[in-house]
């Protein structure tokens, strides 16, 4: 208390030290310490949304974060690209006329890596905001709920698209270097890109919804990976049993219940892929419409759940 009174006497601005200030009213002064209004341009909502998007996208690869948090996403990115590089190298060395692996098949083969990436980065993107209570700080900026959700969703989907698209670019560049048929390869590459774009949207949405439900990173990681692997494990076990017991009709309907098989079904029906289902019993175009509808419903559904989730900033 004594220091306060002293400050009040010398600076004269201490409103709390009433008696001292009153006694020496003659020496009390108010200093202009130069507070000013901001007169520059206001960058506004679109800018804030764009910044949040680019920060989240960079954060998904550990850019702008500590060296330790770069390790995992970069390793997973390398693991994702390595098989593509090997395939291209083999194809060029042995003068193959076509790639030994379809563009559309690549993401299905590497689904474990994609799942791990999503599980490690989706909670990183949203759980930490919840845990350190930074969500209210975002909303004190001129952004609204829809901006936050769109920026986070967009960033997660873009990060997944980079992860899944990069090996396809390697395959495509390699196939052109190996002088494979240009029209054929471009068509396959285009189909592959559409398929991974759909996959990125679907996985990104599911991952964010699960991660936004818990402020603990660990639980978020476990929830995402459990959803992906358990649903895939259950569906492929059931499909194998249905196929071996001659209920081939059931195989394509079972595929509706896990994200990976959904993407597999959509690309088999519309993007000229060969199905990874047992007996290649993928859906025809008719059933494929159901697959596409389910995928779109899940994408829109995750957006709606996220919007609902962020009505309240806490949990």
């Amino acid at each position: 208390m004594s220091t306060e009174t002293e400050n009040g006497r010398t600076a004269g601005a201490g409103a709390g030290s009433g008696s001292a200030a009153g006694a020496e009213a003659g020496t009390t002064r108010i200093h202009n310490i130069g507070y000013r209004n901001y007169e520059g341009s206001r960058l506004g909502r679109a800018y804030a949304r764009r910044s949040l998007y680019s920060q989240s996208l960079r954060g998904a690869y550990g850019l702008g974060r500590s060296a330790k948090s770069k390790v995992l996403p970069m390793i997973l990115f390398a693991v994702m690209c390595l098989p593509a590089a090997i395939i291209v190298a083999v194809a060029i060395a042995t003068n193959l006329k076509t790639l030994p692996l379809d563009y559309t098949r690549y993401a299905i083969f590497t689904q474990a890596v994609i799942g791990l990436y999503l599980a490690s980065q989706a909670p990183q993107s949203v759980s930490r905001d919840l845990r350190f209570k930074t969500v209210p700080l975002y909303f004190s900026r001129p952004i609204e709920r829809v901006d936050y959700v769109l920026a986070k969703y967009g960033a997660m989907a873009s990060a997944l698209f980079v992860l899944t698209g990069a090996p396809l670019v390697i395959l495509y560049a390699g196939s052109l270097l190996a002088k494979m048929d240009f029209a054929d390869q471009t068509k396959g590459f285009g189909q592959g890109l559409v398929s991974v774009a759909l996959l990125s949207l679907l996985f990104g949405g599911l991952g964010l919804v699960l991660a936004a439900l818990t402020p603990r990173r660990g639980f978020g990681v476990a929830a995402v990976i459990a959803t992906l692997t358990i649903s895939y494990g259950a569906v492929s076990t059931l499909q194998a049993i249905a196929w071996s017991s001659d209920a081939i009709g059931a195989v394509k309907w079972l595929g509706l219940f896990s994200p990976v098989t959904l993407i597999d079904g959509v690309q088999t029906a519309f993007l000229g892929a060969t199905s990874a289902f047992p007996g290649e019993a993928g859906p025809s175009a008719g059933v494929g419409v159901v697959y596409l509808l389910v995928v779109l419903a899940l994408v829109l559904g995750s957006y709606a759940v996220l919007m609902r989730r962020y009505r309240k900033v806490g949990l």
Partner: protein
Amino acid sequence: MYNPTVARLTYRALLGRRRAAILFLLPALLIVIAAAVRALNGADDQVAVDVLGGFALATMVPLIGVIAGTGSIGPEIDDGSIVYLLSKPVQRSSIIFTKLIVAIAVTMAFSAIPTFIAGYILNGNGQQIAVAYTVAALVASIAYSALFLLLGTVSRHAVVIGLVYALVWETLFGSLVAGARTLSVQQWALALAQRIGGEGTITSDVGLPLAVGLLAGVSVLATWYAGQKLRTLKLAGEE
């Protein structure tokens, strides 16, 4: 060695509120699948082995092991509240031991019991398959809990590392490289199941004596080392 208060706190952390939901979801799914398969296909020993081996032991037990093992200590280290526990006059090794017991109990309860029920639904314990896989799930629970509890004390990314081991190493490498199967908790547990199950129904790549030795060795070593790690625990700052 066993501290009831630490145990109570750990049970709460593991099963409190929504966290238990994910633990209930997996066993429920297994039983639903078992019922669906039975309805679709009738009782069949080979199908029972496929479902229990492919889904229960290969996917469900490791996942629950990761959640219970790392979840019993990881979040506390993560948010720094472990210091309040460490500052009490309780031995570090007995904290680890208690947490291990809790993790084992939770993993066993949520993996072995549903495996047993699913086995009965699938083929009514024909060829002792349900019992064999239940025993496998029980011993795998011990090893997984010890391993993942150790991971929880070693790294902040314990869950991810644990999942990489459970999914990538055991499933992916295990199916491609034969040597990797020798170093897999799942195969050690299967060795016991092979002994109990009917002739030729369940196969493992590891001999029984080696499997038992490795299971016991890994569990004891992991627990001891986790206790050592906790004695010299450094609380890392936030990234």
